[in-house]
């Protein structure tokens, strides 16, 4: 029920709506719940609504940390 999918904003439409692309598939969603979205932003889509913008800098930071943790575990073994 609470699962969401990451999607990229392809087009902003009137009335707080937008077209997003999910792995090449287009979907019309509501962006009434998220401020200041632009084409190219990534959002989490849940039951037809964008819930939050995904922060690419934080995503990159988490991935780097994960890689570091993974390699630390590797060295330990």
């Amino acid at each position, binding site marked *: 029920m609470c*699962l969401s999918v990451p999607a990229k904003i392809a087009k902003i439409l009137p009335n707080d709506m937008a077209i997003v692309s999910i792995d090449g598939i287009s979907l019309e969603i509501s962006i009434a719940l998220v401020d200041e979205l632009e084409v190219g932003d*990534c959002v989490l889509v849940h039951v*037809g609504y964008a819930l939050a913008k995904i922060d690419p800098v934080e995503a990159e930071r988490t991935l780097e940390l*994960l*890689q570091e943790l*993974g390699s630390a575990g590797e060295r330990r073994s």
Partner: protein
Amino acid sequence: MKFADEFRNKAIAQGIARAIGGEVSSQRAYRFMEFCGGHTHAISRYGLEDLLPANVRMIHGPGCPVCVLPASRIDMAIRLVDRPEVTLCVYGDLMRAPGSQGQSLLRAKALGADIRMVYSTLDAIRLAEQAPSREVVFFAIGFETTTPPTAVMIRIAEKKRLKGLSVFCNHVLTPSAMHSILENPKIRDTGGVPIDGFIGPAHVSTIIGTQPYEPLAEQFGKPIVIAGFEPLDVLQAILMLVRQVNEDRNEVENQYSRVVTREGNRRAKDEVSQIFELRAQFEWRGLGLVPNSGLKLKPAYAQFDAETRFAIHDLRVADNPACECCAILRGAKRAVDCKLFGTVCTPETPIGSCMVSSEGACAAYWTYGRVRDEPLRRTS
């Protein structure tokens, strides 16, 4: 998929698992409850439990809104849809949720009730626009993640003057349930299990932020790590919890910083607070009546409240006594401990709601876990 596939890397997962193995103390047990069904699903689907040391145990919590919805609310919806003028809109995973005496919305639909599966509250608006003579009722269910879309629907209905659209509200609140699990003496003393920390909800926290968990961590001395739903997210969260336990810290930490902030989504919270208010109590399957854990529409929006509009009265319905959903939901038993599991209760013929939703503990175990345990069960 961008922002999903990168968090499923097998080699990194194995490395983090080894890091967890290297940091746990063999002298103690680590019992972590993942509150969300989404985490339960990820743990089962990616076999994460197999990567963990034997003294790190994951306990499946009550964080699946279909699983915690009591049979009485299904029965109330079925009574509602007995009215010939009503069209009921529901999210798909609710269709097979068990009511009492073998009833479900799917069965009611087969018997002729006008029940429509919808993907979004936007679909309910379209239906109400297309059929102005019908009473279109949206069966609203879900945690804080799913509540803002219901609020937006009501606001649009008000703006468009859709007089035939209303909401049967079953939205529930996560921190109240976590509080209940930790505080309820009945759960603590009769079949609950000790919990050393929580993996906190991912998408609920996109809305409410990490702040609402801070009093829980402090009051009960339990570390909480908010984590995303991908396998690397979950493994990193487990490592962060292990470190907190080892260092005797009880903090709220945010693994899911690419989406979750401390404040959450202010706009979504505003939408919710304009439309909804707290119920004094709400019944949860497995937890009973939990104070301040459910939402209802504010009196100003009574015209959109199906319970007021159709004078639906509260029902109390006993669960099937053989079903162990309640104990499973509070971490006291595992799916295999239930004698109905895999016999009469399967995803095709669910008895308890843990088997209905794909995020439920029993359904996750049925789909991904039981094959893994087969050799063990055979030799036992």
